[in-house]
């Protein structure tokens, strides 16, 4: 099971991940053509700033995912193969219960379609578009098992410290 790990201390808030995410989730998959598409391609990853620090904010594909538990239409589900939390747009009715319960605030709204949009870990790619395009390697796509606890702790203290 692979997941996206973030190293906030390496993030420069260039927002390349946001742009590449939106392009990957477009029809043309092309930075020149995608922006004029309807419906408008949307990013599902976010880079925010707080207290002078840059913080990439990503879906964690939670073990006990509140969006899956709360979805009133069966749109949110866990992919049995990748364990990723996915939104089946054909079932989504745009009630926004998922927006209300996501503790990370990473379920977006595609207003033209009235559907929820969220990170799907780019199922057609080996590595998600955000990770592949990150110029500073602030984002990593790693097996959860192999990603050592020490390494994670390092990142954690980098965010917390200073």
């Amino acid at each position, binding site marked *: 099971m692979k997941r996206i790990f973030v190293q906030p201390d390496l993030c420069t808030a260039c927002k390349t991940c946001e742009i590449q995410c939106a392009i990957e989730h477009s029809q043309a998959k092309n930075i020149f053509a995608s922006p004029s598409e309807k419906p408008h391609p949307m990013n599902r990853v976010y880079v*925010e700033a*707080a207290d002078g620090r840059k913080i990439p904010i990503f879906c964690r594909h939670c073990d006990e995912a509140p969006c899956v538990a709360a979805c009133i239409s069966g749109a949110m589900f866990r992919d049995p193969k990748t364990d990723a939390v996915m939104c089946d747009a054909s079932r989504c009715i745009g009630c926004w219960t998922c927006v209300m319960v996501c503790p990370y605030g990473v379920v977006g709204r595609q207003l033209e379609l009235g559907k929820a949009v969220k990170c799907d870990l780019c199922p057609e790619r080996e590595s998600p578009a955000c990770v592949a395009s990150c110029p500073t390697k602030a984002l990593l796509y790693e097996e959860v098992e192999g990603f050592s606890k020490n390494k994670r702790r390092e990142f954690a203290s980098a965010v917390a410290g200073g």
Partner: protein
Amino acid sequence: MEYVIVGASAAGMAAAEAIRKRDPTAEIVMLSDEAHPPYYRPLIPYLIHQGKTGDEILREPRLTPAHLDLRLKARATGLDPAKHTLALTDGSTIAYDRLLLATGASPIRPNIEGLDGPGVFTLRTWEDALGIAKAAQGAKSAIILGAGRIGMKSAFALRHLGLSVTVVELLDRIVPQQLDAESAAIFAEAVAKAGIETILGHTIKQVNRRGKKVTSVTLDDGRELEADLIVVGVGVRANLDLAAEGGLQTGRGLIVDEHLLTSDPNIYAAGDVVETKDIVSGEPIVSGIWTNAAAMGQIAGDNMAGGNSTYAGAFSLLNAMELGGLPVISVGEVHRTTGADIEVFAERHGSNYRKLVFRGDRLIGLILVGQIERAGVYQTLIREKANVSTLRRELLGSRFHYGHYILLQPKKIDRYVMAG
């Protein structure tokens, strides 16, 4: 271990899933008194105007636990906690080791002259929705009693079918539980634009019929309004019959401890039937909200299968919806605007509205209309009773995000970086 779950909606299903997770081979019997396979109850308004077919509201197989022994049209009317048995209306009995009562709630039928009889509906089940759809055929006008969620969803569905629709609400605004005066005013515009009429501050005194057929209603001020059908949406009451039959302790709902265990050590309860405590105020509450029911089911199921999960309580409000193309999210105590330490921040720009209610250093209530992005982060602050004194400025702006939260919750950073 034999598990029996009474009820096949949000709480029952979440419990079955939690049991299955801990115990892959356990026998799980689920009883539903309905004829249809488990479905998403909040979607039944779509059946009225055929916005969705029956198949489209059925519970997704991928979200249904494996090897569930589901029994439809199975209504339990007897409960013997000493013998660990349920008695069904068909004369059979079912034995359990662990029982979950997720019997839900039923619509309240107010005491109004002429209300009983054909042409008057409540909306709680698939069959109710089909009944309304059938009555709407050839009908010209509908009266909805109660401007709550069910009332308004019914109103929009019937309006969609071309009926002239009037909503009668005793309180001074629509969706009164979920909206305050300001946000209700925003939605009133959307409702009027959809061609739905609303009469506030009044109720129905009498339903008038010609023979059996509904012809009109008389309001409490004497006004008479034509109606071919009436939908009543004035709230629900917990289904406590089975619990009472088993001698379990009940109040307004079935009383449980923090593990969702009833007064019997082998019987748990979850969902709309439960009386628990309000997560914000600590006061007793019978919730009736899907999201609360799903959360309770998960915890009850886990505990039934040997877990030790505790339930922190239900939100009095935890509702998201879109009405007339406008989204709204309401969480917690949105109506508490006076009292010690209470501070209210409210701001409206066109059809965007933000209201935050603080008590001391805590956020206790939230209404977002229009721009509802990242509402879940606010919801988490309310749920966790977080001290937000240093976040006040960020919270009041519309760009509050998880990054603000995480820097003030150092313990959470580890979990975040560790990928959930």
